[in-house]
């Protein structure tokens, strides 16, 4: 017997009530607006319910903005923890809708204790059931860290996430700042990485939550795919940058759900379906920072890899990377420490993961982008792709520094080109990568979709291949 078939009357909220009403918000999340409340207490500032999303059951809770501004007290927190118990016991996704000033001041440390218990419940559920947060109003203090602990955070147009509000900031530092600048779509969508998806309307925010839940908890079966042509999306010059997002979207059955679209845009992380099966796509974006990996993009990618691994979502990795971004800023930013997260994430992932090198894969970034050595299920390459420690011209400038220095200025470019060609034949090139076994197969561009689907199918896409770990918000 499922949760919805226990004989309890299904509540269908109706009428033009306050749009901030938590039941209305939960109804907007579930199929047909149908839900069954999990707890009957009123006035505790939180409502909890179970309903369906795209046919599958899901648990959800919402803070009640009409009760003390949605502030969380002990009873409300207990209700959230109880909802988590249901979700974990039944293996259901859980969605939180946030509009809350944080812990209830009047309750003192009791409310802090409750909020802490919510955090603990979220952490214990991490990687076991998908957790999605929709922030539709201010979410301050404890209400900010709640969403931050979950897998995907969606921000509505009135959503504001911050630890301390404008009044506290003003009294402590004297800085004049409003809620929008502290914790609106711009700071969190672009600078902090707190928010995965920014929505234009509340309805859109809930729709995206439904899409996310469907992709993470209803993975579907891998069917045959029709091939598509990618030629018009790739520039003729191998040196010219291009936007990889249209490539990602053409690869998928239909355009996917891009997470963190404006944060660390040099790597693209998109959930979507290939042959009907949920997949996570990672792709370097040459249009931004030349597609280089840097500290922030490595961290963004690592978290995405670990989330997909935890929920058994296979990975498709599109590689076109010139290397790690050089510079003192990057080193001081921790590109070594934060870049190591991506190596760790790929190397520990048990989910099928297929790499496609579209143009080039150089140096340490080659390794980090799901190389054979990190355990890629299969590595494909488009014709003409380069795999090397660095570009051939740059390589001969190091290897043949003296010989090039001795050449006349007039002769140097020709010598450089000659040495580069020689170097490519000796050390690099796709043929050598294939003979070494670090690239399995060179595929024509217009076989891309079928080749990726075949690689995933042969890896055995099933519930067994799923990482046993949490999804710490890296």
């Amino acid at each position, binding site marked *: 017997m499922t949760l919805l078939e226990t004989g309890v009357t299904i509540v269908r909220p109706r009428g033009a009530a306050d749009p901030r009403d938590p039941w209305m918000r939960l109804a907007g999340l579930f199929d047909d607006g149908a839900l069954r409340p999990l707890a009957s207490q009123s006035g505790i500032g939180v409502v909890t319910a179970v309903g369906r999303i795209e046919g599958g059951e899901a648990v959800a809770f919402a803070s009640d903005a009409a009760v003390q501004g949605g502030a969380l007290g002990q009873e409300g927190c207990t209700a959230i923890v109880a909802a988590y118990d249901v979700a974990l016991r039944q293996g259901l996704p859980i969605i939180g809708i946030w509009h809350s000033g944080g812990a209830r001041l009047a309750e003192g440390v009791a409310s802090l204790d409750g909020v802490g218990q919510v955090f603990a419940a979220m952490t214990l559920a991490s990687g076991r059931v998908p957790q999605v947060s929709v922030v539709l109003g201010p979410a301050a203090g404890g209400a900010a860290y709640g969403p931050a602990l979950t897998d995907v955070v969606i921000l509505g147009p009135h959503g504001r996430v911050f630890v301390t509000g404008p009044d506290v900031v003003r009294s402590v530092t004297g800085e004049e700042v409003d809620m929008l600048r502290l914790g609106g779509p711009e700071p969190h969508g672009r600078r902090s990485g707190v928010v995965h998806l920014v929505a234009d309307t509340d309805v859109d925010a809930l729709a995206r939550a439904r899409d996310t839940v469907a992709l993470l908890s209803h993975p579907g079966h891998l069917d045959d795919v029709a091939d598509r042509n990618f030629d018009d999306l790739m520039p003729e010059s191998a*040196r*010219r*940058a291009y936007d990889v997002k249209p490539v990602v979207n053409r690869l998928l059955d239909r355009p996917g759900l891009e997470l963190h679209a404006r944060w660390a845009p040099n790597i693209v992380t998109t959930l979507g379906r290939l042959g009907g099966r949920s997949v996570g796509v990672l792709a370097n974006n*040459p*249009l931004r920072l030349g597609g280089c990996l840097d500290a922030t993009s490595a961290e963004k990618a690592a978290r995405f890899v670990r989330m997909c691994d935890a929920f058994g979502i296979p990975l498709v990795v599109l590689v076109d990377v010139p290397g790690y971004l050089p*510079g003192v800023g990057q080193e001081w930013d921790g590109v070594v420490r934060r870049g190591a997260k991506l190596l760790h994430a790929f190397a520990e992932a048990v989910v099928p993961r297929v790499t496609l090198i579209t143009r080039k894969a150089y140096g340490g970034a080659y390794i980090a982008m799901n190389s054979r050595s990190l355990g890629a299920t299969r590595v494909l390459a488009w014709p003409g792709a380069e795999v090397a420690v660095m570009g051939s*011209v740059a390589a001969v400038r190091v290897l043949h520094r003296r010989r090039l220095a001795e050449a006349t200025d007039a002769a140097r470019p020709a010598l450089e080109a000659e040495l580069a060609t020689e170097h490519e034949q000796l050390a690099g090139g796709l043929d050598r990568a294939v003979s070494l076994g670090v690239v399995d197969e060179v595929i024509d561009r217009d076989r891309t979709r079928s080749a990726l689907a075949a690689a995933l199918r042969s890896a055995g896409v099933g519930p067994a291949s799923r990482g046993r770990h949490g999804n710490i918000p890296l």
Partner: protein
Amino acid sequence: MAEEVRAEMVANVWKVVVTAGDTVADGDTLVILESMKMEIPVLAESAGTVQELRVNEGDVVQEGDVIAVIG
């Protein structure tokens, strides 16, 4: 409101595509930078007129330098 288009990374200015006074649409290429052995177009992020163009071909731009002002 004027929008400043800034360099995302250290780069050489390889080609300047627009001139001050040109009308541009969102997504139009303003200049093409050269960095990491790549030609990287810098795009307008809003429609408007190129009010200022602060780089010439051959210049080196640092991260955060203003390339153009679109208004």
